[in-house]
């Protein structure tokens, strides 16, 4: 743990972190930007008019003056970003004039997951036609027009949970009736299998490092999240240090790096209730190139699943029995799941969740950096439960 004032990191401390933890260039850029701005003001509440003006400036730069904006309203979103829906009257290139439902997705001063809007824009564009994703239009990754970095993408019909379901904060613990699971579960597995099957080399992802087979992708991931722990954690945790040391020592080589969603779980996709069809995979902000086991482990994390009505069957993401999840995934992806590698990535998942819940959520709430600090503080409370699961995984060896 660095002996530095993390609320006001000095340039030398930032430089030391950058030198110690070699990250992908775009990850380094956004983490460095975060630290350089940390001593500045907290999140300043912006009204819809301000966001509309910023959106209009961004759109004007791209399409000129011939457009109208109306029907602006806030959307409830996850724990991380602000979202505003609006209607854009415009003439897309080569198409007739139309009204398009749009979403502005903007980060606050600091996020519970500090991520790149540029990368989010690129991956949404790359996934068009591969899995259901919103159409993506424009990005303001340097906050030239909007108060903070943002993207504009198309509004997609759907819900993250049916009206008769209950859940905890951020989509966790969503209880779905069996008929929903039977429809959504197979789609959930198929979508991630399609993502992993996609040839990364052919995807236009200039802000992503396309790692060769081997240890590079896991090395970058460990550097990223250990850096975040050093930047954000207030109270050190010996178990987190043990987990990090274990992860460093037991890194598995990745035979075929794939595009990863990074946060694949219930709550991060939309579906329409009338036909139980997944209409959009959302929240790609943690996407990266890496080992497919990482997405499986994340989806399988206990925090995102629950037991079926029989009290015994564990449902991955609250949707699919674990054995069926893995069997179906292997059939559809062509990836052979290795139990030891899966275990490794389950430890990684638990450790990263600890970084987020106990490190970043605390730090950004403490510094009043978000539009919902009270939710960030609330999320800190899940940290011990997550660490208990991490401890159990480490005890397995």
């Amino acid at each position, binding site marked *: 743990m660095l002996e530095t004032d993390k609320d006001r990191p000095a340039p030398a401390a930032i430089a030391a972190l950058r030198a110690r933890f070699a990250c992908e260039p775009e990850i380094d850029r956004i983490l460095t930007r975060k630290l350089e701005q940390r001593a500045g003001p907290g999140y300043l509440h912006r009204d819809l008019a301000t966001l509309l003006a910023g959106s209009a400036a961004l759109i004007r730069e791209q399409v000129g003056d011939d457009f109208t904006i109306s029907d602006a309203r806030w959307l409830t979103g996850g724990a991380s970003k602000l979202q505003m829906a609006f209607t854009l009257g415009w003439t897309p290139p080569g198409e007739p004039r139309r009204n398009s439902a749009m979403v502005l997705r903007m980060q606050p001063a600091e996020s519970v997951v500090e991520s790149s809007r540029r990368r989010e824009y690129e991956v949404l564009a790359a996934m068009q036609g591969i899995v259901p994703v919103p159409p993506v239009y424009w990005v303001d990754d340097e906050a030239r027009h909007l108060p903070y970095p943002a993207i504009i993408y198309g509004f997609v019909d759907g819900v993250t949970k049916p009206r008769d379901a209950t859940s905890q904060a951020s989509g966790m613990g969503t209880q779905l009736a069996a008929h929903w699971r039977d429809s959504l579960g197979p789609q959930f597995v198929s979508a991630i299998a399609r993502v992993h099957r996609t040839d990364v080399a052919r995807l236009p992802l200039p802000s992503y490092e396309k790692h060769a087979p081997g240890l590079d992708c896991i090395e970058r991931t460990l550097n990223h999240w250990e850096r975040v722990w050093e930047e954000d954690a207030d109270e050190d*945790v*010996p*178990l987190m*240090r043990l987990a990090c040391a274990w992860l460093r020592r037991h890194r598995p080589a990745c035979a075929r790096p794939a595009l990863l969603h990074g946060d694949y779980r219930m709550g991060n996709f939309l579906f329409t209730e009338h036909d139980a069809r997944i209409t959009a995979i959302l929240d790609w902000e943690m996407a990266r190139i890496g080992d497919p086991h990482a997405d499986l482990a994340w989806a399988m994390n206990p925090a995102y699943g629950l037991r079926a009505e029989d009290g015994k069957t564990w449902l991955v993401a609250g949707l699919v029995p674990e054995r069926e999840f893995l069997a179906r995934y292997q059939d559809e992806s062509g990836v052979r799941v290795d139990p030891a590698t899966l275990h490794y990535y389950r430890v990684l998942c638990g450790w990263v969740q600890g970084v987020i819940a106990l490190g970043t959520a605390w730090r950004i709430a403490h510094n*009043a950096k978000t539009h919902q*600090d009270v939710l*960030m*503080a609330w999320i800190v409370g*899940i940290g011990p439960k997550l*660490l208990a699961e991490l401890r159990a995984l480490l005890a397995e060896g």
Partner: protein
Amino acid sequence: MQLRADLQLATAIRALTEVVLPAVDADNALAVEQTQVVIGMLQLMAARLPLQYRYDCDELARLLTLCRALQPYDDDGGLAGATHAGAEVLARARATPQEILDAIHGLRTLSGAVVSSAYRDGDDAARAALSALVLTHADEQLLRERAWFAPQGWELEPDGVPPLEDLV
């Protein structure tokens, strides 16, 4: 244990002030007034909670002074015993809550650094021993932290976590 009252109060005050209060129906005077009073009450708590233990010790010391002076007037002698017991309590109240927190913080940092370096540089036997130590400590500590946060409802099987009162 990372989530403490200072952060809980600060974030609740901010949410009430910046999000909830502006959205309360301005024509509902009772709701507006009570939201403002709740904010004020939480602000008072946030300001005074760090001083509460010190304040109580100060009050006890002042009362002991009074009670010692009152003993000649105490016909049945009960005040002398209570004053002695009170003085003993005050004598035991040496460390402040902040000093305890500072000690926790320092030991967490140093033990974490030792775990990192010893695991990295040690042999297999040392790593196994180190792991056992940390996992044992985590088992006990995390059980208490989970009990602390149990009212939030994160536990899928809440009966597996004993009441906090039985653990500390």
